[in-house]
């Protein structure tokens, strides 16, 4: 059943999903964005996930759980990376609604994003502004 977006209130949880950012997924991501920068490793020699792969992951739950309709536009994005993430880490991506307004033919929704590592430490905080056909 389609979601009634007008019923969503500030503070409502939109999505809470757990994903593992595997080497295969990171490689696919890097190929898709044609990233040619040097791969980064931590002091133990373990490869680190590119920050924007984490950001993309944080939006996956929003897109799916919010049942984003075709034609939705992403108009703004903020993000802050708090800790590096190793390839293969399991991440919990939580999204909550920060605002929900209709202007003319569009619904503007601002979604707060939090990504936690398996120790429940924040690795990314962010905010997405999306425009849905109202």
């Amino acid at each position, binding site marked *: 059943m389609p979601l009634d977006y007008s019923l969503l209130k500030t503070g409502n949880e939109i999505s809470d999903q757990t994903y593992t950012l595997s080497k295969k*997924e990171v490689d*696919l*991501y890097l*190929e*898709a*964005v*044609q*990233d*040619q*920068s*040097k791969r*980064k490793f*931590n002091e133990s020699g373990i490869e*680190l996930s*590119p*920050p*924007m*792969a984490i*950001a*993309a*992951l944080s*939006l*996956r739950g929003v*897109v*799916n759980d919010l049942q*984003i309709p*075709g*034609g*939705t*536009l*992403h*108009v*703004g*994005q*903020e*993000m*802050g*990376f*708090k*800790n*590096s*993430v190793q390839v293969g880490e399991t991440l919990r991506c939580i999204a909550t609604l920060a605002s929900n307004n209709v202007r003319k033919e569009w619904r503007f929704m601002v979604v707060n994003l939090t990504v936690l590592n398996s120790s429940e430490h924040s690795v990314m905080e962010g905010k997405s502004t999306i425009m849905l056909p109202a």
Partner: protein
Amino acid sequence: MDQIRMYADASGDYNPIHIDEEFGKKSQFGRNIGHGMMAAATISELMAESFGTAWYSTGKMKMRFRSPVYPGDEIQTSGQVTKSEDITNSNHITCSVVIIRQNDEVIISGETSVTVDKSASDGD
């Protein structure tokens, strides 16, 4: 389009505005558009190249998607340091960033910041 489909697979964002040709034709853009986050990834690449792993653990980014990126666009990403603040043992660096297409139209503009350890040569 192949790259856009690959990004859809990588991100899980299959919005038909990106990948369905018929949907794109009927949209306000008259064609498909790329994912904004796919273009924005070039900003992160630029920051990682410039500041190494400091970008991975202290980077911040605020962007406005001003115009869609279209299949076939050639984009250019650039950044300029606008502020460097001296903090004990580190520098907090702020940059303005922009992505333009071949006709100089702005696709994304924004601001990034990163805190770099003074003892690190390149953050790696």
